[in-house]
């Protein structure tokens, strides 16, 4: 009381604290209660109000301080709680549904002999100890932490106790025969569960050690751990993405052969082109066109090329030359660059034969780029192995081969280029 008075005077004297509170809008200027009272209780002082109709005029139910006991307890201990008078007699034992007891298998002398013989490996346990364990298990309903607490011998670990109990119980469960009539009993279910889930001590120990370690982590270690997990996830995502991309290209290139076996790249046999004859040019030309068109039509129907469909109607053949060969802008640019470099150009004469050949050339180029990429990855792997070996030998690590250094630089360059291009596009 004196303390609170002290506080009161203190707060009254510090104008600042009052101002603070009012500036936050929590104070009140109600003259009845005064600002000092408000600052003392540090809360809004509002006259308690009750919405109309919250309480009905019905009579309030009565409660009684009542004794109760549990049927489970043998000492007949009586405890008290509040209960409503009108529902007084409804439930005799409120907590009876919590009266659950673990069913524990008990062994006879002969059974113990059998079990013991079979569980020879764990010979450190004596009959007396096992007896005690089973007694405690029954008493404390398999609450092993409690059992461990009550256990007289400190050398036994919690896991050892558990393991002993469950291994013996499992053996018992296996040797017991059950009548069909008892198939529904609790004990039978317990036995089935025992057989289905053998106790694994090592796993349990490891699990606890791990949890303990995780609990002991410092902030720094925790951060590192999280970083590692994040990186691992990223690597996994990258791997998946790469695999998907490769799969897509594979599908796209199914006509061009398998990337991994460049030798098997299918070369479309070039069609004989009838040398242009001056007379009857248009007619001959036309016939040839029709013949070739049917070939290209077949090709169009197959739809090997991305984003190309066969549909009725007229179109200009050169549009086929411009269908993008890949979904990746970078690949498209590389293919275009290579076409210029090889002297083919981006728009050869769009006849049926050339369009087909041009398509297959473009697919071959994609093929080639992919193979090149795989090769460079392999070269890096090889280089890394060399570095590892020289480290093992204690030698100077070999320098990065010039072509590898260049290839990685080139990739960086193109990366910069793309961003430039993108920026330009946006402008």
């Amino acid at each position: 009381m004196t303390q609170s008075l002290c506080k009161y005077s203190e707060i009254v004297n510090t104008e600042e604290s009052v101002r603070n509170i009012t500036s936050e809008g929590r104070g009140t200027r109600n003259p009845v209660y005064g600002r000092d009272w408000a600052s003392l209780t540090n809360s809004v002082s509002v006259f308690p109000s009750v919405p109309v109709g919250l309480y009905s005029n019905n009579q309030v139910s009565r409660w009684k301080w009542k004794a109760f006991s549990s049927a489970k307890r043998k000492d007949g201990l009586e405890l008290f709680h509040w209960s409503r008078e009108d529902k007084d007699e409804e439930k005799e034992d409120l907590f009876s549904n919590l009266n659950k007891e673990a069913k524990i298998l008990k062994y006879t002398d002969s059974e113990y002999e059998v079990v013991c013989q079979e569980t020879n490996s764990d010979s450190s346990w004596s009959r007396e100890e096992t007896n005690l364990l089973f007694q405690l298990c029954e008493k404390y309903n398999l609450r092993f932490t409690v059992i461990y607490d009550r256990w007289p011998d400190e050398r036994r670990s919690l896991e050892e106790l558990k393991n002993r109990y469950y291994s013996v119980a499992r053996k018992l469960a296996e040797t017991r025969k059950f009548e069909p009539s008892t198939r529904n009993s609790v004990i039978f279910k317990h036995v089935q569960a025992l057989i289905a889930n053998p106790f694994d001590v090592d796993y349990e120990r490891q699990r606890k050690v791990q949890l303990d370690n995780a609990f002991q982590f410092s902030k720094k270690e925790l951060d590192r751990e999280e970083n590692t997990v994040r990186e691992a996830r990223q690597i996994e995502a990258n791997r998946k993405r790469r695999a998907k991309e490769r799969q897509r290209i594979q599908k796209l290139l199914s006509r061009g052969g398998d990337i991994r076996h460049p030798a098997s790249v299918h070369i479309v046999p070039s069609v004989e082109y009838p040398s242009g004859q001056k007379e009857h040019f248009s007619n001959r030309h036309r016939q040839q066109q029709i013949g070739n068109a049917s070939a290209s039509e077949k090709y169009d129907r197959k739809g090997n090329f991305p984003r190309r469909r066969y549909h009725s109607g007229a179109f200009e053949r050169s549009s086929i030359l411009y269908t993008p060969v890949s979904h990746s802008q970078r690949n498209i640019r590389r293919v275009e660059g290579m076409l210029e470099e090889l002297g083919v150009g981006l728009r050869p004469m769009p006849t049926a034969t050339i369009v087909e050949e041009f398509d297959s050339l473009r697919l071959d180029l994609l093929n080639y780029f992919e193979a090149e990429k795989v090769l460079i990855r392999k070269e890096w792997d090889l280089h890394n192995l060399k570095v590892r070996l020289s480290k093992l030998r204690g030698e100077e690590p070999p320098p990065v081969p010039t072509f590898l250094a260049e290839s990685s630089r080139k990739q960086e360059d193109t990366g910069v280029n793309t961003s430039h291009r993108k920026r330009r596009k946006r402008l």
Partner: protein
Amino acid sequence: MKASSSPKARTKGATVAVPVIQGSIAFWLGPEADEWHSHRWTAYIRGPKNEDLSYFIRYVEFHLHESFHPSKRVVTRPPFELTETGWGEFDLIIRLFFIDNLESPIELVHPLRLFPNPPKDQSVEEPVVNEYYEELVFQDPPEELLAILRMGPQRTVETELQKYFLDFTRQEAQDLEKIKHAKDMIRTKLLAINERSKEIDEERKQLEEEISRIGKAV
């Protein structure tokens, strides 16, 4: 023209390709010419052998740069060409309408060239010719159109520009040769990659053995 009211059916499975050439020829009008009209140019659609294309083309629309008035010019009779004067290069849109209304028009884009490429001094006599070979592919054309297309052109048209026209007869063979050459190059490169990849696999195996040997020794 030949339009009839009978229901028009498409012929499934039929494909006809008609070669045409889109082009432009530009004459420099000399140093005294008006700076806004330094060139006289003609854009056109023609057959490779100057065939009369009106047997299947009803009319051609040339869409010029917005600075021309009107910017849309329609040519309804052969030869399908359009002459204008100007000072700048732009992309022309050429829209071909066929005698059968069922077939939707084809749109070609033609870059108008006024200045020689690679750049050199212009002369009044030597025009800048820019031509592209194109093929119009009709997939499942309407029956009537198919019959007309199969019959082919009936005559050729004369135009005073035809002495400048390019000949594309050898072009296909040349382009094919280039593509074939390129494919051979790529194939050799792929084979080399394959070889190298095998070498790497061998070398890797050796290195890995070496590493595991040293690792055991340690």
